[in-house]
């Protein structure tokens, strides 16, 4: 009977290989779709192998929980709108963090000495569903040899801490993006309170890691860890959520890797660590694109100190009618469309692409320019444009398109604000100073579709709107794009 453990080990190995190859394929647009399927096969193999593990109990319960979890997530993931994808990623990521924390909790509670020292004797034929059998120690194969080693204990506690923070933090991120929590919760001394909570969690965690396992400190540990995730995320504004979600994604990966070590499960270690590293790098790339450090995002309470008088902007916003804007672009040679979160909110991507196609039919060279942090996640705009059917080779990165702006006749900005604000280059007092921006003001004409005269997400005035070559087309993104389509058709008709 030695072939079964071998087969299971081989299955985990295969799953790890498939995960890495899948992720690799996902990193190129051509093979990306196949990549997720590879990874999916890997997951299926790993889950089936786990079902086949010997000395597993409660198989009925496991199956039930898997089916319920899969059904609920599948259903919600299928029907949610593309614009809501960022919060769904946050939600599912939080669930993963919660699962890692639950594993940590099960390990810690399961190794409370009074219980786990009961007997090292494995009792055969104890149906796990008979309550009387619960008193008899059906030990974990690892624990059967020994209680957790110090390293296992330490990593188990650490994984539980990180997983808990990721869990409660991701849920707050989800609630914020979903619009359930609009306000930023900021109070004086907040940073100190957060640090104290974290320190308390770490102290209790250290006590646990030193082997003093009992119910009260374990419970206190999880309460503190969850509380810290909550407190840490509450003061962070929606504009910074992409970085935060990416960070929690990396957190969950790490937590999974650590718990995988405790369980002696190589697939979890490898998959978790790959995600932990990839997520950390991705987080850094995103923070860099906003010209901020990760620490600044987490603890900076963006905008709180930015009330200081910034440059006073001279001039006025100059409105334009949709008909004039349409004519301007119809006879332009090169048009660059810059979408932002406003386009996502207004669900305007289809109308925008319809408009762009009409321009292309007229022989106008149209491209889409996307700032690395436009929207709520990196690449958020790419996904929305792809949904509308925009071919990805029409979409340009900031670095590619910026040198071209001086040759662009019209830059059409739809629902983007801070990422095109020239103050980021000119005003050292501005909170976004130093952030790389799309140089739309270098274009010959700029048309800005905007709902009203207010400031953007970060609450900063935008000098672009007052520039001489800029015209404002007020209106909801979808309505404005629809109007542009109508007016463009009228140009010929």
């Amino acid at each position, binding site marked *: 009977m030695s072939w079964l453990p071998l087969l299971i080990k081989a299955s985990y190995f295969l799953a790890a290989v498939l995960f890495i190859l899948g992720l690799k394929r996902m990193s190129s647009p051509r093979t990306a779709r196949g990549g997720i399927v590879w990874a999916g096969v890997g997951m299926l193999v790993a889950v089936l192998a786990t079902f086949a593990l010997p000395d597993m109990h409660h198989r009925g319960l496991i199956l039930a929980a898997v089916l319920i979890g899969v059904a609920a997530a599948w259903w919600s*993931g299928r029907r949610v709108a593309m614009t809501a994808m960022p919060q*769904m990623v946050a939600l599912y990521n939080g669930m993963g963090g919660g699962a890692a924390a639950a594993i940590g909790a099960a390990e810690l509670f399961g190794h409370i000495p009074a219980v786990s020292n009961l007997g090292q004797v494995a009792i055969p034929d104890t149906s796990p569903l008979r309550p009387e059998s619960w008193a008899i120690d059906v030990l974990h194969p690892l624990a059967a040899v020994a209680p957790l080693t110090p390293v296992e204990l330490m990593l188990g506690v650490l994984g539980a801490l990180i997983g808990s923070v990721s869990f409660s933090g991701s849920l707050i991120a989800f609630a914020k993006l979903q619009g359930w929590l609009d306000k930023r919760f900021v109070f004086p001394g907040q940073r100190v309170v957060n640090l104290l909570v974290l320190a308390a969690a770490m102290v209790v965690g250290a006590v646990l890691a030193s082997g003093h396992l009992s119910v009260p400190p374990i419970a206190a540990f999880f309460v503190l860890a969850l509380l810290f995730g909550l407190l840490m995320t509450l003061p962070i504004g929606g504009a910074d959520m992409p970085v935060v979600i990416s960070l929690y994604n990396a957190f969950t990966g790490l937590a999974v890797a650590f718990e995988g070590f405790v369980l002696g499960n190589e697939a979890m270690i490898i998959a978790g660590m*790959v995600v932990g590293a990839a997520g950390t790098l991705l987080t850094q790339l995103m923070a860099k694109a906003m010209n901020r450090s990760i620490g600044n995002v987490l603890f900076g309470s963006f905008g709180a100190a930015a009330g200081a008088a910034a440059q006073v902007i001279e001039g006025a916003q100059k409105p334009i009618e949709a008909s004039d804007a349409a004519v301007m672009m119809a006879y332009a040679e090169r048009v660059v469309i810059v979408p932002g979160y406003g386009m996502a909110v207004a669900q305007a991507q289809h109308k925008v692409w319809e408009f762009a196609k009409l321009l292309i039919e007229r022989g106008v060279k149209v491209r889409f320019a996307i700032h690395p942090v436009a929207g709520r996640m990196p690449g958020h705009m*790419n996904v929305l444009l792809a949904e*509308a059917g925009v071919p990805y080779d*029409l979409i340009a*990165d900031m670095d590619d398109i910026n040198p071209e702006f001086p040759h662009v006749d019209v830059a059409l900005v739809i629902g983007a604000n801070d990422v095109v604000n020239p103050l980021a280059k000119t005003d050292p007092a501005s909170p976004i100073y130093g952030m790389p921006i799309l140089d739309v003001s270098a274009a010959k004409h700029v048309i800005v579709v905007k709902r009203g005269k207010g400031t953007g997400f970060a609450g900063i005035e935008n000098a672009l709107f007052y520039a001489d070559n800029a015209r404002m087309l007020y209106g909801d993104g979808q309505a404005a794009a629809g109007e542009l389509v109508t007016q463009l058709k009228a140009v010929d008709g």
Partner: protein
Amino acid sequence: MLDGFLALYIFMLAAFTGYEIIARVPVILHTPLMSGSNFIHGIVLVGAMIALGHARTPFEIGIGFLGVLLGAGNAAGGYVVTERMLEMFKSSKKPGDKA
């Protein structure tokens, strides 16, 4: 049972692998890739299944059940969302059939 140093090597090599994969990725794929890596850490489901499979007290069973539920949600949700995002990537050689 994993030897400590062997595990350390696995940690290190896996970390480099993850780093290398992301380092060369175009911005356009950042969101799908974040979502994809979110799916991959859904492997936590396997650990939660093991935890539930070895639970002894009703309380541990409860925690394990919750863990499996959450882990399954992570895996399934992550897959669906990633698949939906990637479904939409096509080049202009094959123009979209629905606009």
